[in-house]
Every structure is written in structure tokens, then in C-alpha cells.
């Protein structure tokens, strides 16, 4: 296989939990150095898609082909993290180094690697702090640091900006853009169409199957969004970027209409 081959290729992938299909005939390629966002409603199979890529969910049919020697690392949703677990920032990052050295304590080289990684991500002085004591953006960066310690070719992130404020979202987006500029391929899922998805170079709209894929300017249109979310949305344009707006009347307007019709 040549080095220009995609890092990961999904061909006709179908995944099922029990009797329910979660992904149906999904075709997707992740080329080297790409930055791809997957959007879709809750239960559309976004997380399952990531799990299929890392191999923790096996498809019932279809193929998930990874480039030989590919290193994939995964950043989970922060909502799934046990924030009361006794682990410092440095311990959290270092636990990902599971190959090679068997001793519990870090070697000098490992300590230097973790320190330089934390410095690079703006967490330099926080190594001894408990993970709960950090801000939302810092917490996300700790888990990105842990993933980067595995020196990945492809970084997967599940809802990296879920439940964070605008400033933290900007921080995360900026960090991921910088990492992507160094050649790291990124595949992430997001619910945030305007704050996150519209800023990414490539989008995949998913609702059990791939509804559309391409640049946001192309993919984010009313037809694709309605098929993806099952709801009507309007797409405006601002500064060359698509802005998705719900086509739902203001709350209370329907009540007024009902009262008027009742009279």
C-alpha cells in the first residue's frame, strides 16, 4: 500500500447494537493530514463511527481498513471522565505510555517528553495538579496531551467542545488547527454546527448513513441538514461561512396562535 493511501478507509460498514443498526453502509476515507468533522443528531452513530475506526466496535459487515503501522489515539467526551479519580495531570498523560517501559515510575526521557508536551499545550506548571482543578479548556488539553503522547498519525476526538463556553471552544479549535498544521490528521464528532463544524475544512453529515460529505460551504445546505436532523433549518452566510438557523417559531408564538384560533 502506498503512503498516499488513506489512513483509514471504511467500505460499506454496518454496525449493530443488539438488533438495531447504528451505522448502515458507511463509506468514508480519512486521508493523511486531513481535518474532518462528523455531525449528526444524538443517536446518529457518530461515536460508533469513531469506535469502528479505533477497532473497539467490530462491524457486522463491511471493511475498516487501516494503513499498516497506523497509530490512532482517542480523546473521549469529557462528560465520561471520572473527575474524582485520584490522578494528577502528569499521571493522566503518562498512563498512555503502555508499551515499552514496564516500571511504574517515569524514566528521565519520559518525564522530559511529558514536560515538553505539557509546555507545548500551555499546561507547563500544572503537572502536579489534580485534573478536577483545571478549567474546561485545560481539562480538554490534558486528554489531548495524553493522546499525543502516543505520537499518533490520526487523532480522534468525541465531542471535544461539548458543554464548554465560547472561549474554551475557541481555545480547543485553535489547538486542533495548530496540531493539524503539523500534519496530524484529525477526525472529530460535534453537535456544534456553527461554533465548530462550520470552521472545519471537511464535514461528514451522518444519520446512521452518510448523508453528505465535503466542505461546510457545500454540505451545510437545507436539504442535507433536513435529511440529517429530520428538522427544517435555514442556512445563512456570514463572512463566507455558512450559519445554520433553526426554522422554529419563537417559543410561545404557537401558544398565541392556538389561543387566537380558540377564540
Amino acid at each position: 500500500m502506498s503512503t498516499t493511501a488513506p489512513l483509514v478507509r471504511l467500505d460499506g460498514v454496518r454496525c449493530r447494537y443488539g438488533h438495531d443498526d447504528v451505522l448502515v453502509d458507511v463509506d468514508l476515507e480519512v486521508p493523511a493530514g486531513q481535518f474532518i468533522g462528523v455531525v449528526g443528531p444524538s443517536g446518529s452513530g457518530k461515536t460508533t463511527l469513531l469506535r469502528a475506526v479505533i477497532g473497539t466496535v467490530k462491524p457486522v459487515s463491511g471493511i475498516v481498513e487501516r494503513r499498516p503501522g497506523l497509530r490512532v489515539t482517542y480523546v473521549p467526551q469529557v462528560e465520561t471522565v471520572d473527575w474524582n479519580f485520584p490522578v494528577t495531570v502528569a499521571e493522566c498523560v503518562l498512563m498512555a505510555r503502555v508499551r515499552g517501559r514496564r516500571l511504574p515510575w517515569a524514566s528521565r526521557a519520559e518525564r522530559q517528553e511529558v514536560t515538553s508536551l505539557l509546555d507545548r499545550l500551555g499546561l507547563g506548571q500544572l503537572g502536579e495538579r489534580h485534573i478536577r482543578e483545571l478549567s474546561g479548556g485545560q481539562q480538554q488539553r490534558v486528554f489531548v496531551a495524553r493522546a499525543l503522547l502516543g505520537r499518533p498519525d490520526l487523532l480522534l476526538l468525541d465531542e471535544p467542545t461539548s458543554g464548554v463556553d465560547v472561549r474554551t471552544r475557541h481555545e480547543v479549535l485553535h489547538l486542533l488547527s495548530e496540531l493539524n498544521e503539523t500534519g496530524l490528521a484529525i477526525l472529530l464528532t460535534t453537535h456544534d454546527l456553527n461554533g465548530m463544524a462550520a470552521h472545519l475544512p471537511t464535514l461528514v453529515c451522518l444519520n446512521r448513513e452518510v448523508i453528505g460529505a465535503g466542505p461546510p460551504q457545500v454540505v451545510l445546505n437545507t436539504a442535507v441538514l433536513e435529511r440529517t436532523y429530520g428538522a427544517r433549518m435555514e442556512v445563512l452566510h456570514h463572512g463566507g461561512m455558512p450559519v445554520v438557523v433553526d426554522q422554529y417559531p419563537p417559543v410561545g408564538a404557537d401558544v398565541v396562535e392556538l389561543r387566537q384560533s380558540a377564540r
Partner: protein
Amino acid sequence: MDVLFEPFAFEFFRVGLAVATMAGALCGLIGTYVVLKGMSYIGHGLSHAIFGGFAASALLGVNFFLGAGLWGFASALMIGGVTRRRAIGSDAAIGVITTASFALGLALIKVFGSAGKNPDAYLFGNVLAVERGQIVLVAAVMALAVAVVFFAYRPLLFSTFDPEVAEASGVRTARMDALLMVVLAATILATMNVLGVTLVAASLVIPAVVARMLTDSFSRMLVLSTAVGAVSGFTGMVLSYHLDIPSGPMIVLTGSAFFAAAFLVTSLKRS
């Protein structure tokens, strides 16, 4: 002062003290993982399940440690398998398997007797039931536990903290879980005489909870929990002799005193 050191003149006490201190340390070490993985109920259930193995080995005339060990190993694997299934509530399934095993043990002893073994010693712990050979057994299990924690430190930590990402990063989490269950079963088996099946779970949980209150670092928690367990075992054993109370309850009460002190100190610090 002489009264304080009086029990040290007896060999049975010195043996019991050595076993209780090692047993406390062992429970503290493994208890860290038990507490952080939310497996306290499994520890409680497994200790009860092993009592069934004790009764069955007495009935069949099989070596107690071999019979109860196999029984405990089978129970550990069954519990491990059950907890990985979502269709049945794991707590309910553990409750069924382990209490059934405990009940079977009680019924077997009632009908067939316990072949000269004292069931009360296994239920509540008894310093007099501790034999010299048990030092070797507890030391062997301690060595196994330390080796597992030492050489599988990072994969164990990763799979305890974040099993899904650990699996994605190449850690065989099912293997880690099975390894932990085997060490847990061996720990319970080796410490039954001193702590008693009804109180082993407390010795697994209390030192780890005390350590958790005192530190936010995993490595420090591991060391602190082991130390609190060892000190509880030593102090509880000495108090057990002087107050004429079975060793199991006294060790647990000593651990509980550490818990109360740690709770008070950390609460005052917070306020």
C-alpha cells in the same frame, strides 16, 4: 508497660501479628483498585462466595486453600463475566451468585460438619486459627500482588481510569480485569483466617477510602492505602489480644478510626 508487650512473648501472637500486618497491607494495596473501579460489592460478595468453597473442601476432604481457591477463582471469573454483561444488573447478579455460595456453605456445614475446622474463625477471624505456614501463604500472595501492580502499573491504571480509551490504546482491559480478580480472590483466601469473610470487604475498602481522602495522586494513594492497611492490621491485632475481641472486628474498627480521623481532618481543612 510490660502488659503492653505481654502478647509478644507468645509465638502464636507473633505469627498472627505478622500475618495480620501483611494481610492489612495486601488488602490496602488491592483495595485501591477495588474502590476506584467501584468493585466494593464484588469484594464483599467474593469473600462470601469463598466461604462456600471452604465448606465444600471440608466435605470433600480437599485441601482448604486448594478447594476454596478454585471455588473463589471460579466465582471471580463468573463475577467478572457478569459485570461485563449489561443485560443483567451486575449488582443483582453478584448478589445471587455470592450469597447463594455463602448459603450453600452454611448449609453444608450444618449438615456435614466442618471436618475439625472452626467456621467461626473463617467468618469473623481468629488469631488462634492462624498457623505458621500462613505467613508463607500471605507473603506469597503479597509478592504476587506487588508483582502485578509493579509490572502492570500503567495498563492497570489506564484500564481502571478509562477502560474504553485504554482498550483503544492497546491495553487488553479484559485481561487486566481478570488478573485483578484473580489477585483479589487470592487476597481474600489468604486473609480469611485473620479478617473473617464477613469483614474482608471492609479491610479492602477502608484503607483505600482513607488514602483517597488524603491525596489526589494515584501513586501516593496506592502507597498510603497499603500503609494504612498494614498499620490497621498491626494495631488491630494488638488491641484484639488486650480487649479479647476477635481479630477481624478489631482490625476493621481500627481502620474505621483512621477513617473517622481522616474525615475530620480533611473536613476541617476544607472549611
